[in-house]
């Protein structure tokens, strides 16, 4: 029984050694079977059942199933995927916690607000700028003009006032611009592809930002003498000082975006000509007035340029359109997110991949909190009221911003982005709300030792229980109860810290969700 043999997975043969798991064999073939409860050190725990494969007509967990000669395993089939997805969806139906905070989820540009606020609170302004510029194309502009849907979703609303998220954005961006060396988000190497963006308003500028970061040569063409579109025509100097707008435009130039100003489509150049000179053309002309329609060379619909809503594609090959040119967009941030979406489509198209809008980051959604649950959150936050800047024109100073940021309830999950459960939910397109039911209460145990334990996020994988057992922790962790009500806890109702005297870091590291995290982690990587 010591000689190697071969088995097949989805028809592909692979050499295996006796005693090896099917999971391991699949990994050798590059088949990425999802696992949550599997950690090599602990051996198969067989709790999550997410790593199911089909063997002899039955679904079995691949982590605990050993290979045998002649085995024929099915892994990447619809049936197996559906079973894995169901396992994930069942876990989410009992998962008390939001991956993304409501503010993050509600931001059309997906700014990770709690992470930004934690950086501000800790005085890490550069890191805050990195977070902001990662998500927002013109943060100093948005920080002044955004209608901040994030704040409507802020859970502090039900206590006093939402965190001043937009003001904090502005603070970070202003500080960044004033630093002399504003942060530039990383750009990928040049792709050799070029894109012409016609119209330098919010949607066009946002698209330019994201396409440039993908390594494409972007040229923004605008018929005015300065780019900005409605940012210039429809705002006052008080609302948006032109100096701020110009500084943000300069950031775009630093990213490599070229501006061709005073050039109008239909007069100075044609769509046909642009199509010859660029790999793709994006029309972000702003609202289409009946006067200029005949010049465009693309088919129009009732509201503007006709496009495929999923791809932004117009009737002309290689020509995309977005923003108010397609359908009037009232809100600045919406226009910018449309620019971001079409940038993704154009980018994919340039690489020969079918265009589609960017995927939303998967998030489990907890919904409304009751007052008791809110109090759990408030324990980690400053209960003071909203801080107004002493000089309204200049915005918050550093001290004021730090206090304001400390009001954040941190209702995001610090594991988001590192969470294995969230990762597989995204990959398997799980529906977190498939099984709607009464959820358990949100609980948060803040430990003096810096661990945050959120039992509702625990999927009972058993890794931490096993690790404490292996390390012979004096108290350790154990499963408590039976059936649906099982939870992980410390013997004799002690707090988590007491159970994790030796292997806290290891348990936090290997927790597949955000049930065990360190408070010091900013999250959101």
């Amino acid at each position, binding site marked *: 029984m010591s000689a190697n043999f071969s088995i097949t997975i989805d028809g592909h043969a692979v050499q295996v050694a006796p005693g090896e798991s099917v999971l391991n064999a699949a990994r050798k073939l590059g088949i990425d079977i999802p696992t949550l409860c599997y950690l090599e050190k602990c051996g198969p725990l*067989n709790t999550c059942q*997410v790593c199911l494969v089909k063997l002899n007509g039955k*679904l079995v967990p691949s982590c605990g199933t*050993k290979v045998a000669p002649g085995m024929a395993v099915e892994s990447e089939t619809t049936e197996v995927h559906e079973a894995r997805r169901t396992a994930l969806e069942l876990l989410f*139906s009992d998962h008390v916690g939001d991956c993304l905070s409501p503010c993050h989820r509600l931001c059309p540009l997906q700014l990770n607000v709690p992470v930004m606020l934690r950086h501000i609170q800790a005085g890490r302004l550069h890191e805050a700028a990195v977070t902001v510029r990662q998500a927002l194309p013109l943060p100093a502009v948005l920080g002044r003009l955004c209608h901040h849907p994030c704040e409507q979703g802020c859970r502090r609303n039900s206590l006093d006032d939402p965190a001043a998220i937009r003001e904090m954005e502005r603070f970070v961006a202003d500080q960044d611009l004033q630093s002399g060396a504003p942060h530039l988000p990383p750009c990928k190497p040049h792709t050799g592809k070029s894109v012409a963006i016609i119209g330098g308003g919010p949607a066009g500028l946002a698209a330019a930002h994201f396409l440039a970061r993908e390594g494409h040569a972007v040229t923004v063409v605008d018929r005015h003498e300065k780019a900005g579109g409605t940012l210039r025509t429809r705002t006052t100097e008080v609302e948006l000082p032109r100096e701020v707008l110009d500084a943000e435009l300069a950031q775009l130039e630093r990213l490599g975006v070229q501006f061709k100003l005073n050039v109008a489509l239909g007069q100075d150049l044609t769509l046909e000509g642009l199509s010859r000179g660029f790999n793709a053309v994006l029309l972000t002309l702003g609202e289409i007035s009946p006067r200029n329609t005949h010049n465009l060379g693309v088919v129009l619909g009732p509201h503007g340029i006709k496009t495929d809503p999923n791809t932004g594609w117009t009737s002309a090959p290689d020509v995309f359109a977005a923003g108010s040119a397609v359908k009037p967009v009232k809100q600045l941030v919406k226009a910018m997110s449309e620019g971001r979406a079409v940038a993704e489509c154009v980018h994919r198209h340039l690489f020969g991949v079918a265009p589609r809008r960017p995927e939303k980051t998967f998030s489990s959604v907890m919904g409304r909190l009751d007052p008791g649950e809110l109090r759990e959150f408030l324990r980690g936050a400053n209960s003071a009221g909203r801080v107004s800047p002493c000089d309204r024109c200049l915005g918050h100073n550093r001290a004021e911003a730090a206090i304001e940021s400390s009001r954040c309830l941190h209702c995001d999950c610090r594991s988001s982005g590192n969470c294995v459960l969230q990762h597989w939910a995204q990959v398997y397109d799980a529906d977190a709300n498939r099984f709607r039911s009464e959820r358990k209460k949100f609980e948060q145990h803040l430990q003096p030792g810096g661990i945050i334990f959120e039992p509702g996020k625990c999927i009972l994988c058993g890794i931490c229980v096993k690790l404490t057992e292996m390390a012979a922790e004096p108290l350790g*962790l154990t499963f408590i109860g*039976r059936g*649906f009500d099982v939870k992980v806890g410390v*013997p*004799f109702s002690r707090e988590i810290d007491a159970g994790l005297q030796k292997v806290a870091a290891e348990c936090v590291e290997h927790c597949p969700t955000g049930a065990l995290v360190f408070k010091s982690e900013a999250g959101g990587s």
Partner: protein
Amino acid sequence: MSVDLTFADEALARVGRKPEALIPVLQALQEHYGYLPEEALQRVCEASEITPAAITGVASFYDMFRMQPAGKHIVRVCRGTACHVAGAERVEEELRRHLKIPDGGDTDSEGQFTIEQVACLGTCTLAPVLRIGETTMGYASAEKVPKLMREFLEAQANSVAVKSTEERHGNGHGAAAEIHVGLGSCCMAKGSDQLFHALREGAEASGANVLVKRVGCVGMCHRTPLVEVAAAGKSEFYAGMTAEQARALLQRHFRPPGLAQRIGRVWTRVLDGLMLEDASEPQRVQRFSLSKRDPSVRAFLGKQVHIATEHFGKLDPLDLDEYVAHGGFAALARCLGGEDARLALTPSLSPGERENHAPAAVMSGNGLGLGNVETKMPGQTLSPLPGREGQGEGKGGQRLSSDEIISTVEKSGLRGRGGAGFPSGQKWRVVSLQPGETKYVICNGDEGDPGAFMDRMILESFPFRVIEGLAIAAVAVGAREGIFYIRHEYPLAVKRVRAAIAELEKRGWLGDRLLGVGPSFRLSVFEGAGAFVCGEETALIMSIEGQRGMPKLRPPFPAQEGLWGKPTLINNVETLAMVPWILRNGAEKFAAIGTAKSKGTKVFALAGKIRRGGLIEIPMGTTIREIVEEIGGGVGEGRRFKAVQIGGPSGGCVPARLADTPVDFESLRDVGAIMGSGGLVVLDDTSCMVDIARYFLQFTQDQSCGKCTFCRIGTKRMLDLLDRLCLSKATRQNLDELERLAHQVGAGSLCGLGKTAPNPVLTTLRYFRDEYEAHLQGRCPAKKCTALIHYTINTDCTGCTICAQHCPVDAIPMTPYAPHVIDDARCTRCDTCRQVCPHNAVELK
């Protein structure tokens, strides 16, 4: 509050300090303190190898352990299937109301009573059942609750000492007559132990030469307590007698001397009243005439064949000599090698005694007792007294090799009676072929299926037979140690098996040399702590090892890596009870009974909406219709037979239209049910199939160990959907989702519990989809789901106020001589008003 920890130290010293001592230690603590005080648990951690994590994990896993002090008396409400369909939920609601136990709590404010739900007390024919302290009460109902509690407290106040019927009774062999009293749990719940003592004392006082004898289960649980008077080659049967009537019975049969004669005649007349014609109400007392003349007894017993229950109603469960006289241990003796072992079987009886030793067998031969029916199976001739002069003769007393024993079991076609029907011989073979010195055999007596009590009955009535079967298995596979795993809800079974083991040890038949000649074989009893999932082999092993009973992925199978990582054979009680018969009578004889792939007989617990419930043993292949209509006498008057639930929470509902399905492993699987361990609950038109599905899912949900995602959360979500259906809040999408999820839970769960949990839902969806559809529209056709029904009073009401007096929630204002009205918002649908109304004026819509 400080706790005296001396006992904790004592318990550790007595039970052990190794990690595997955990469950017995906790059981000892619980028994002593009434709960598990944290101080005592801390003490256990300090003074043993048991870790805090293990203690907390295990104590919170098993149902029997409490972390808070309980009331003075524990009221256990059985939530088994039969009790459920008979209205256990209403009884419990009424109990809570009566004892004023607050919502979410389990103990009344005075600390007198604590209510506990029990998965199944295994006395299904008495449903609904309560057990207060040691007293089991059958046929409970909501309106009887105040009376039951009053009676219990009165009995307590009078401190009526409950006599034990468990001591070894003196050897009364040689008496001219015998009185047999059934002393299984069901019988005892109906007062047979008190009756037994009354008869015994009466017999002694009268000086009659009569042996009052305890026997095991008779099977006719619908007629308990059952008394058989066997004298002068004649037997008479009495059903439903009470202790007060004992004297009358003695007087009737054994001439009362002198003065008492006249009184005796009066009593005899009363007794005649007890010997009336058949009636379906279980409370009615009646006489059984001889089996051939009483059609109901004949129908009940006629189709039965007794192998696991051989000599039922005849043997004193703990009389070893009697068991031997009836062929007991002959099979084991053959396995161990002929003459030596056979001689070993007769040390305690002189030849003269042996002559007189088989009165029951003589009666069997005369064809007069109940036991004779086993010889009357059509087309079969079973030897009534096989054994010593039987099969072994041809081999000249040679020891059977392991291979010969296993081959015999293989040839017999015996399949596991615990549920899955895996060929037993094959399992034995795998264990026997495993290398290594240390192997274990385990008897799985964790009969957890609600609605099943076969294993309890077999352990209570035939402990020696099961021990013999286990010993044969041990000899065959080469194990030197055996364990009985018995659920703690079966105290009598535990007691009797322990007593039987002690008796065998005393005689030198267990321990260093099996039967005094064979290899060493040690037996112990492990009491379960209340977790259905421990019936699953890998979970059972975890439990013996002192851990939470969480199943493991198989392979490796226990036959390869079982208890302590060693090859382990686990067989169900009933399977083992068949083994001695097979070896005594030969594989061919066993294989001649049953169907092509399912050989032999199967014991069923017949309960639910049926006239004659009880314990039956029938040849495989008997149809459901024969069981329900012939043996069980059909459903109640005016009711319609709708379905049978076979196989408990893992099984399914077979509709009446498929009643001609033969009961064998394959046929049942084909209709979506499973054989299961043998619970057979009959349902009639008052049973709601959605409610039944929900009931079982609630059960598996409660009993899920919580390890794997599909079972832990999947069954919960299925239950959520069924709850919505029963509350009329479900949409068609919910129904579709229920079906989809049911398939996925079945496919994705780790162990058998989860894999089969959706069966009750899937079979009811398959056969009774119309009822699900009706619930979608807000109707419950069986008028069972309380959210969908309403009680009203029609014009027949005379204003007698009885309903108003009985309504426990004052939902009926008292309006004498005027028609009454039920306040629907207050009404809890306890059904009391409908039951008490003398004019049938309460309607259910």
